[in-house]
């Protein structure tokens, strides 16, 4: 039986994280997985236009204002795996874990050094504490290097065994065509 995967992002506008997630969603084995994208704000999308992939638009400019609609949508779709990218969304998901279906596995992909990201948050201390309390609610965290892994361990409470290193990838077939 196919596993249902939901990929979620704040937007699908241009950006590295959006590009990586779009690429994975498009290329993942569709015989094994049913793929759905849940995006908070679909306006200005770049990478999945006219692609044969189901997208649910929550029509919310901010993650914080769309979070209840997000919970409702995830409960309705009832996926096996939820994959998110962008650290503030990853944090939100780890916070709301207990409102999501019990069978759901949470996989997050961290695209930046958390120590640098937190610096620019307006509520620096609160965010720092939340990462220290809730990040271990994730079932798996994907980072791009050993140094990145250490940064995550230093700034969150996640069990290091849940962290997997996958280098930021490049589509060599595309590059070679240029």
């Amino acid at each position, binding site marked *: 039986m196919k*596993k249902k*995967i939901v990929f979620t992002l704040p937007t699908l*506008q*241009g950006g*590295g994280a959006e*590009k*990586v997630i779009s*690429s*994975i969603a498009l*290329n*993942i*084995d569709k015989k*094994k997985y049913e793929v759905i994208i849940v995006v908070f704000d679909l306006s200005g999308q*770049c*990478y999945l236009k006219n692609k044969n992939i189901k997208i649910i638009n929550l029509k919310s400019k901010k993650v914080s204002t769309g979070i209840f609609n997000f919970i409702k949508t995830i409960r309705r779709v009832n996926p*096996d*795996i939820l*994959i998110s990218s962008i650290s503030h969304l990853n944090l939100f998901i780890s916070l709301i874990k207990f409102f999501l279906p*019990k069978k759901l*596995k*949470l*996989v997050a992909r961290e695209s*930046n*050094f958390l120590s*640098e*990201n937190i*610096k*620019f948050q307006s509520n620096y201390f609160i965010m720092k504490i939340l990462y220290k309390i809730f990040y271990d609610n994730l*079932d*798996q965290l*994907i980072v*791009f*290097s050993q*140094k990145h892994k250490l940064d995550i361990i230093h700034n969150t409470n996640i069990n290091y065994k*849940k962290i*997997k290193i*996958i*280098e*930021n*990838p*490049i*589509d*060599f*077939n*595309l*590059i070679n065509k*240029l």
Partner: protein
Amino acid sequence: MKYEFQIFGKLNKKGYGRDYYLKLKKIIKENKLTNIRLMGHVSNPEIYLSKSYLQIRLARTNDPYGRDIIEALTMGVPSLATGTYEGIIKNNFNGYLLKTFSTDKIIFLLDRLSKNNHERNRLSKNCIKVKHLFDGTNQIELFEKAIKFAGNRIR
């Protein structure tokens, strides 16, 4: 050598970044800087990157590791970036890393490159030497393994 600068990225005409966008536009117009072009967001940056002499990638955050840097590297285009993480750009090997933003240093490096074409070729060759590290052909497989691993964990 006279450089042509193409500035990419979302510079909103409305809302966030609007003032900065207008300021840049005004400076370009007032000084008749015909060699600077505001390109906005492009969905296929690889095409522009592949034709570039150098990528200048400045950021407030210490993040010289974005996709744009890796993409440029795999095409043999060196980057000049701010930050300290040497996982991708190794200073003076396959690009330049500035610990902190400095206009003087950037001008100095651009001047150095323009006077010595071998320097750019050296950086470019070193980019190609390490590009295999970022081959994404097995990325989906690795991702599927990670998903499987998460699925096997007991909550």
